[in-house]
């Protein structure tokens, strides 16, 4: 069964450093997403992406965040200058259709720890 993969599974970084989280969406999906979940809290939407453009973003997704599809398979989330409060699980997802009505397939997540 096709699945979304994410690397690394755990990333530890110092405050102020840049991190790039990587995702490989399901191959025939065209719509990609990033969510985050701070420990013990809700899953929060960050951004959706289609056709090399951001479709929608939340208030969390400020200028410190950026997304990119550098090639035909990878989808990345970059945090330019990490803060302590960026520590969370980051989930990538992909879907066949753009609306939230369509099933989104989530990856296993990257646990980001900012020290």
């Amino acid at each position: 069964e096709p699945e979304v993969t994410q690397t690394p599974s755990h990333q530890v970084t110092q405050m102020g450093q840049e991190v790039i989280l990587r995702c490989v969406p399901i191959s025939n999906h065209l719509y990609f997403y990033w969510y985050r979940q701070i420990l013990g809290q809700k899953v929060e939407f960050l951004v959706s992406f289609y056709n090399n453009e951001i479709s929608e973003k939340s208030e969390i997704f400020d200028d410190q965040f950026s997304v990119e599809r550098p090639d035909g398979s990878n989808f990345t989330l970059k945090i330019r200058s990490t803060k302590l409060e960026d520590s969370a699980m980051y989930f990538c997802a992909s879907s066949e259709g753009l609306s939230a009505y369509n099933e989104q397939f989530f990856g296993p997540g990257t646990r980001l720890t900012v020290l």
Partner: protein
Amino acid sequence: LAKTTQPISMDSYEGQEVNITCSHNNIATNDYITWYQQFPSQGPRFIIQGYKTKVTNEVASLFIPADRKSSTLSLPRVSLSDTAVYYCLAPSMEAGTALIFGKGTTLSVSS
């Protein structure tokens, strides 16, 4: 966007049927009731989706009354591996790409 309300937690024993009810009083015509499941340290996983009446798949059933102001996710004969957080969402078919998760219902299944 329809607000959903569901119990914070539920306990069950193996082999029992579990019903989790979700309230969505302001659901709109184009909103679909959708349930996701999340195991610890994993991403959410789609379980089932419906618009009205009853939907059944290999994992669960979803009951939606005619007024669509609530819905019930039914898990038949749960096992220990069904211990997870279950989220009720009401995404629109036409508007928005974001899944808006609440706190969900933490289901604990014991032997």
